[in-house]
């Protein structure tokens, strides 16, 4: 059982930061909706307020970690240029996808969309966290602001979902592999 360092980074980016963000996002949407639908007179406890603030800050950190590892660590490996005369494109995912009409759209739509739309997520999530820090439990007194924040978090969820879906599909059709080998265990031959 072994994988490469580049494979490990895609795992950290997608299954680590990205998947955790997506899981957290659904929780944030539920919590924001739940708090805003409470009876106007029902007080929101200090612990609920602290929990939601910490939750949104963690989500923003996850979103930043996802886009930064994706853009500055994995994307350069994805778009690497092959030396002239290279026939095996396995180490050059972008070129591998563009080499066949059956896979080119994974790059021209999938990666082209993912690389940009994914960046909307940390901006929207940071804004939501900043507003929660500033207003805390009193955000419920600003219904228009609360509704707009919910819309931005929903859009961030959608954008992260697109990026996550295409990330998984791209990795399936042209995985980013290479670098040194990390061996977890030796199997026994049968």
């Amino acid at each position: 059982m072994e994988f490469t360092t580049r494979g490990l980074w895609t795992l950290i980016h997608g299954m680590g930061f990205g998947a955790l963000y997506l899981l957290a996002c659904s929780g944030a949407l539920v919590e924001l909706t739940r708090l805003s639908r409470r009876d106007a007179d029902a007080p929101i406890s200090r612990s609920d307020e602290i929990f939601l603030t910490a939750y949104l800050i963690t989500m923003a950190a996850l979103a930043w970690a996802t886009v930064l590892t994706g853009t500055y660590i994995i994307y350069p490996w994805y778009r690497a240029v092959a030396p002239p005369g290279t026939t095996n494109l396995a180490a050059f995912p972008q070129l591998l996808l563009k080499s066949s009409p059956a896979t080119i759209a994974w790059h021209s739509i999938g990666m082209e969309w993912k690389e940009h739309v994914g960046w909307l997520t940390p901006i929207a999530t940071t804004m939501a966290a900043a507003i929660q820090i500033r207003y805390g439990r009193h955000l419920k007194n600003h219904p228009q602001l609360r509704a707009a924040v919910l819309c931005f978090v929903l859009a961030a969820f959608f954008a992260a979902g697109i990026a996550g879906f295409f990330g998984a599909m791209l990795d399936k059709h042209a995985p980013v592999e290479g670098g040194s080998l990390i061996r977890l265990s030796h199997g026994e031959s049968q």
Partner: protein
Amino acid sequence: MNQKVSAITDSHADVPNGSGAAALLAAGIGCFALAVLAVAGDASPFLKCLLIFYRPTGPLSGVTTVTLLVWLACWAILEQCWRKRTVALGRVSTIALALLGMSLLLTFPPIADLF
């Protein structure tokens, strides 16, 4: 004493909506800037070269860096102007959400390729 404690715990209670509106509109502008820069960088070879801040990542490095600068600068300016004010939040959030919607559309490659 009790009054003082209450004042501390409820320090957010009378915060005007200007701060939130500033964060909201700046996020909308930031998202839209990203989409516009992505489309412009794709359409113009000159701009594409100009946006290469870090060669291994290509123009995406410039698109995202400029976006962050635009977003943070707008946020700082709007926060400075609005933090102590109550603004027309309905109009601000409509503009912010329209900008967000347009950025989602413009980042979709078949639409971006129309420009």
